[in-house]
């Protein structure tokens, strides 16, 4: 099985002939011996040339998140044998910036109105979450195009707050 594995701008070719827990893998043009054993709870114990990696691996089709004691990587996996239907299509509108809630909370106070001109870093609204009030500031200068919330409104992660153009 040949795979193309990438994380951010780094990319690697991997060729693995899977046969049980132990085997050889070709990575970045080099052969390495590995010993990879599943642990209870979706973790893996990987030993490569004596080095121990105690990893959590969570994968979903062509995305894989690997985390261990010394850091973590999110990989995108391309398998030439399979189609990779999902392509990155996360481009926003050129000039329009949508601001969404990154966590659940409650809107305490809107500091601007629709059509207001805002400068970079200007306070837009105050959101309370986990007993702390956080002021959401403008990521860029522009005009407030749309407002999706009002004072007192509870919001969930990803909920649309407002947009700036």
């Amino acid at each position: 099985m040949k795979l193309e594995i990438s994380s951010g701008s780094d990319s690697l070719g991997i060729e693995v002939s899977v046969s049980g827990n132990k085997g050889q893998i070709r990575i970045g043009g080099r052969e390495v011996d590995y010993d990879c054993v599943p642990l209870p709870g979706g973790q893996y114990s990987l030993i490569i040339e004596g080095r121990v990696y105690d990893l959590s691996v969570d994968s979903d089709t062509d995305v894989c998140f690997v985390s261990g004691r010394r850091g973590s990587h999110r990989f995108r996996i391309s398998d030439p044998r399979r189609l990779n239907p999902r392509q990155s299509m996360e481009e926003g509108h050129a000039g329009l910036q949508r601001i969404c809630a990154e966590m659940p909370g409650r809107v305490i106070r809107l500091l601007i109105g629709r059509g207001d001109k805002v400068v970079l870093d200007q306070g837009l609204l105050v959101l309370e979450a986990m007993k702390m009030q956080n002021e959401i500031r403008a990521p860029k200068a522009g005009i407030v195009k749309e407002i999706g919330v009002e004072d007192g409104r509870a919001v969930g992660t990803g909920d649309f707050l407002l947009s700036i153009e």
Partner: protein
Amino acid sequence: MFRKVLIANRGEIAVRIIRACRDLGISPVAVYSEVDRTSLHVRLADEAYLLGPAPSSESYLVVEKIIDAARKSKADAIHPGYGFLSENPRLAAACADAGIPMVGPSAHSMRIMGSKTGARSILLRSGVQLVPGTYRTLNTAEEAAEEARIIGYPVMLKAAAGGGGKGMRLVESEDQLKHEFQNASSEALGAFGDPSVYLEKYIARPRHVEIQVLADRYGNAVYLGERECSIQRRHQKVLEESPSPLMDEDMRCRMGESAMQVLRAAGYENAGTVEFLVDGDRKFYFLEMNTRLQVEHPVTEAVTGVDIVQEQLRIAAGDPLTLRQEDIRLRGWALECRIYAEDPERNFLPSPGVIGRLIEPQGPGVRVDSGVYQGWEVPIHYDPLVAKLVTYGSDRNQAIARMCRAIHEYRVEGIKTNLEFFADLLRDEEFTVGNLSTNFIEEFLGRRGSGVEKSSELFHAHAIAAALAYGERMRAPQSAKPSSMVSGWRLSTHPGGSAPRQGWKR
């Protein structure tokens, strides 16, 4: 001693108090809001009573519901923990009315110290050195601006009714003062039910050092050394230690004696903490007294060997204090890191959610006071404190090394935490030499490198794991996903390294 104690709190501190109760043969009673039905403190208690819906204003902050639960359970005392009603004299008064002792000082002492401005006016006559500022609360931004002009900028805007950084703002100009006055006041109202704020002169790069005190109703009192709590973010302590690297025996005695004066001025009983600011010349100023158990009490427990919560319960039960000042000797060094559900990569944004995996550190010199467990969802309604990680060593270096080791072992997945942030902070040279101030974190974030060093060895190993997991998925039938996780794990809660940043900025 009490037979049964109701703990009017949640999270790690409720668990901490449950443990002290068990150690004294007391049956612990929990209370909970609807979202806390499966919280750790409920699971560990002997009894548990529902208070109401998730918002603390409808549950943990309702005095009448607490008293009702105490009556229903026939508890013979109430421990308020920290936060919530712990410094609210209304609870103390209601307890007194109901004939149920509250583990803490009298409503009277609370009122004196609870009003930071009141405390300042009383201590004016005591000889204890105070931070220059107002001795009364300020009603409007204009009034505040007027006083600030007299004191001189920068000034600190503070909630008159409480501590813990809530409603606190550093203000450098009149414009900013007018802008922040409302925020601080509304935050103070939300946190303490009282919008009053006052002003103090800002002391540049101060250190925050506090003295733990214990006093019984018979006039016996001791101080249990100091804690250095200079490492704060947004006026919230995040890392504390005892002793303070700044301190020598002489300064400890003088600060301890000042704390005793404050204690006497308040007619104080039970455990309390007298906070001081220390300026660049090692002069110290009274900041406030916290009339309750402090979050960071474990570092004092580690170096003194005294169980502060047990002492609280004994004092409240009317036992005389058996500790004498000469018995109190600090041995070794202790650190505490407050592990928060927050994302340091995104300006410490709170990160509630389901804890997918949890491995907690163990071994020599490590104490974990946790309020969570694997598979449990950290609710959005309360403080994002997940656990307190405390390490002890024979000296500061050993305590730091053990903290690094404990953090290395600690794994919290599904939510983001500040564990890696601490791992970096503990290696910072200014920290290791003990050159601290309340500006420490701000300065540290400035000089901190990119954080993660690129290791191609690690990248390769992780890529191999990803490839093997992929291969396993491809071979497995579609229904049987390889992840045999406990419930509630969601991939989407992982940090989106390559995900587009949304317009969230503070």
